[in-house]
């Protein structure tokens, strides 16, 4: 599935909730589903800039397809990490290199998260692009 299609899917999920707090409950649930990231990866080099909470993101290249893992110390942010990984993990290097940062606005995350947190999401996407450009 293309990144655009995955964004569309997540958007539909988020649009389902009319009440903002329900969206957060959903994010918290997503955070709980996030696979744990080994503590040896929770080091400064893997930190995402722009997040008020700590977010770590790592990348594995399997035959030109990038797989990401990540986590955060905050539960809601873990949910955001889960969402971002759902969208971007398991994508080709070429597709990731061309990711448009405006994708965040597609998700209408501004309604869900604060400006600070949104810049954190942008930080995560930037880090993903960095990994793709270096791959």
């Amino acid at each position, binding site marked *: 599935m293309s990144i655009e299609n995955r964004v569309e899917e997540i958007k539909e999920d988020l649009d389902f909730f009319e009440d903002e707090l329900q969206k957060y409950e959903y994010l918290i649930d997503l955070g709980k589903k996030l696979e744990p990231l080994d503590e040896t990866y929770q080091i400064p080099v893997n930190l995402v800039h722009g997040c008020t909470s700590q977010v770590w993101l790592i990348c594995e290249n399997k035959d030109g397809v990038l797989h990401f893992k990540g986590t955060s110390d905050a539960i*809601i942010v873990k949910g955001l990490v889960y969402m971002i990984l759902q969208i971007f993990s398991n994508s080709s290097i070429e597709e990731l290199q061309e990711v448009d940062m405006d994708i965040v606005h597609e998700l209408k995350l501004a309604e869900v998260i*604060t400006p600070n947190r949104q810049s954190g999401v942008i930080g995560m996407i930037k880090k993903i692009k960095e990994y793709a450009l270096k791959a």
Partner: protein
Amino acid sequence: MFKKDFPYFKNSNIVYLDNGATTQKPQSVIDSQVEYYEKYCANTHRSNFGDANKATTNYEGARKILKEFINASQNEEIVFTKGVSESINFIASSYASKFETVIISSLEHHSNIVPWHMQGRSLGKGLEVVRCDENLSFDFEHFEEILKANANAFVSITHISNAFGKVHNIKEITRLAHEYGAIVLIDGAQSLAHLRVDMQDIDADFFAISAHKTFGPTGVGAIYIKNTHLKDVGAYQTGGATIHEVDFNSSTLLDSPYKFEAGTQNIAGVIGFASALEYLNKVGYENIEAIEKDVYTYLDSELQKIPDIEFYNDISDSVGSRSFNIKGIVHDDIGILVDKMKIALRVGHHCAQPIMKELGIKGTIRVSLAFYNDYNDVDELIKALNRALKMLKD
């Protein structure tokens, strides 16, 4: 009871508990600024037509109101600035840079730490930090040790910790510092919103004041400079309205306060600040202190009921702000959720990273009150905190 005086509370359904960051503005403060812009907008201290004279009169009237409000001895001791950060940077650069040692406390805001780093000072090299105990109380013994080892130092200490609400005994700090020949600046950013300050009683050499944390406009503050130091403080910035005479060879400056207020000032802001002080005079500090103590004590007792809550100081010698964490919960999560439940508070390091590092935490959840907050605000906060905790723990 006093919320009716503040338009924000008519227009917003937010429970506002971020007064340590900025306070709401009473109608009279807003009106006085609008009146200036609508009815007599002109520059001060320059032109001589009617509106210009009125603007100058009101601007200088504000200086007198602030002078009387803090019981300074003369108008010349009051210099308007952009705020406390500028006040501290001004004195750091124009007066304190020549001092071999600067002494600060552990509870300082970054605005009373970074200016000293900018002078090339670091811990043990021109900068000393007074320890606090496990209740965040100022360690007077350590302070005296530092004063003994560093004669004629410059002491720059906050009155009230913005992060924890802890109140320093600034009168005693000043007395002890003076005994060792030190000069004292007090960061009073959080002071005027909660406590009456009296320059004759405190006896500090400099006292930095914020308007926007005192129910006045943003972008305005002041520095009180004791008259004995007026001649020794150099100009910070120069330009319009600071000079006596200029030719292409040299300039001679006016006396204080004019030599310190270069360029067109925030005239509307200063006039608005005076209105805020007049409003506070009407409310009275007896009322402010009594209401705050009552609501602060209620806040503390209700917070204490939350399981696994962790505080860093008790409420003795504290006003306004109450800082805490909840075991196993990252404060950012709480901040996001209570915001969506219409509670305005602050989570994070509150521009006081060094003390957070000493305490081994990244930050806290800070509830900061003003005299317009009431029991209902506290009840709404507690409801929201409990709901957020349920969401995060379930």
